[in-house]
């Protein structure tokens, strides 16, 4: 085994490479959610099923996702389900303009620094993460299309009834 250092190096690089390129899984990072006027930790919402969505005003599919997220929260709110949407615009006025056009009945947080997206390793806009009552990221989804709705709702349903 004179090649042991080489093997070790190989393993480390492989793990790094896989880790960097994979979507987030496991315990959800405890990000700060700064809404207009209040701030809370993601962990404060433990015990609820959470659909965490990262969006921006310039993101076209996000326009489609907003009515759907409104509908989902309305439909499943009494079963302990919450939608949290984190805005990642650098310029908050753009986000506010978006919100007047596409109203949100769910909680919207603002993170101009993009730190929360960094922690969740967001790989596309919009990105959504389904978090169970124990705070684990169960599934993640990149983009938003009409045909995704059913699958996403099925994911929500399965977590609520669990």
């Amino acid at each position, binding site marked *: 085994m004179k090649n042991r250092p080489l093997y070790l190096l190989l393993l480390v*690089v*492989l793990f790094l490479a896989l880790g960097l*390129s994979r979507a987030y899984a496991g315990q959800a990072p405890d990000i700060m959610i700064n809404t207009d006027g209040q701030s809370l930790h993601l962990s404060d919402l433990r015990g609820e099923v959470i659909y965490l969505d990262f969006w921006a005003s310039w993101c076209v599919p996000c326009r489609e996702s907003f009515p759907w997220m409104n509908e989902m929260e309305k439909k499943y709110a009494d079963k302990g389900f919450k939608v949290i949407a984190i805005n*990642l615009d650098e*310029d908050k006025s753009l986000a506010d303009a978006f919100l007047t056009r596409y109203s949100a009945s769910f909680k919207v947080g603002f993170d101009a620094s993009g730190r929360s*997206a960094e922690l969740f390793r967001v790989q596309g806009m919009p990105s959504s993460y389904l978090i169970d009552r124990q705070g684990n990221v169960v599934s993640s989804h990149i983009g938003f299309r009409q045909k995704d709705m059913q699958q996403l709702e099925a994911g929500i349903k399965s977590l609520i009834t669990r």
Partner: protein
Amino acid sequence: MTLKVLCLGILSVSVTLAGCSSMGVKPWERSHLAQNKMQLEPYKLDSFLDDHIYFSKEGSSGGRGAGGGGCGCN
């Protein structure tokens, strides 16, 4: 020896595949890039008319996706 080569091969492949996944502009930093004026063809009608002129008057086809012509009659 062959093992070493194999290891190096796997190493370089994995680095090439994953190495670029965390570089450059982050997905949430694309607001300026998403603007209309940053697109290759921001004004569709303008480029359609330009195309037509090239095709009709100068007989240049291809390159911008139009085919045929050059008779100046279209």
